[in-house]
């Protein structure tokens, strides 16, 4: 199954939830915002979203900026 995560192609073997993806990537949940197929998903809903083939995920966080 192929996913686009932050613009990069990645493949996963079995279906997984957004929550599992964030955990697998060692990301701190409090720090990030996640968009699934251009729809923002609240942190509480991560376990409810199972990723499918060709899904697009954006994971962003705050950085310094003027």
């Amino acid at each position, binding site marked *: 199954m192929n996913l686009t995560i932050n613009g990069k192609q990645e493949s996963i073997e079995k279906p997984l939830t957004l929550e599992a993806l964030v955990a697998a990537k060692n990301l701190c949940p409090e720090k990030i915002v996640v968009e699934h197929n251009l729809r923002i998903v609240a942190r509480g809903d991560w376990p409810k979203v199972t990723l499918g083939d060709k899904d697009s995920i954006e994971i*962003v966080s705050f950085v310094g*900026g*003027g």
Partner: protein
Amino acid sequence: MEDLLPLGGRKIKNRLLIGTGKFASYPLMQKALEAAQPDIVTVALRRVDAGSKTDNILDFIPKSCLLMTNTSGARNADEAARIARLAKASGAGTWIKIEVVQDNKYLLPDNLETLKAVEILVKEGFTVLPYMSPDLSMAKRMAEAGAAAVMPLGAPIGSNRGVKTRELVNILIREIKIPVIVDAGLGSPSDACECMEMGCAAVLVNTAIAIAQDPANMARAFKDAVEAGRRAYLAGLPASGTEASASSPLTGFLRDDAFSR
């Protein structure tokens, strides 16, 4: 009476807004913010690096600061709106500095897309402050569309060149009813002071503080300069002339011909 700036339904005490980019470290940034005590600081949103364990910048910004997320990286109104919605979802609030740039050399804003972004985001309940080129008709449209302020550039971002747009910014100050906040290009406290003397409501400074040898001291210097400039504006600057106008009396000189007057 306290001189507060009404902005986006709030009352802002410190007219120096500070950007958080380019600091050598988050602790250095934190020291600068503690030294200048801004009411408003800007941050940006970026894709995370997989596996990155970097610190959370928000932990280094004093809780008393209002966060304003910029939409840097956006090339059109829709991308700016998307970034604004992500910022809101992150819990950073609904204050957005709209920054739509297509030109990578000078980082000059695209006023037309910026206006579109203002229209979209105001309807969604955001408090929007558009970074823009100081164009009067565009600034009027931004105000009509519900922008909380306009943020004309003084000079290209990070150029430290000062208020090169002075004449145009002056026109905005005279003609626009919402606050005018000069953003970008201010390189020294005297530049910030100049803006405030002109009657700007506030200024936003990032690079000049962040890359100073001692950012905390520079932040404090900018704060003092902004206060001095604001005080001078409120006091009413006298008109300038081309000839001398003596400040000492022109009578009673200690010389012979003084009596013949």
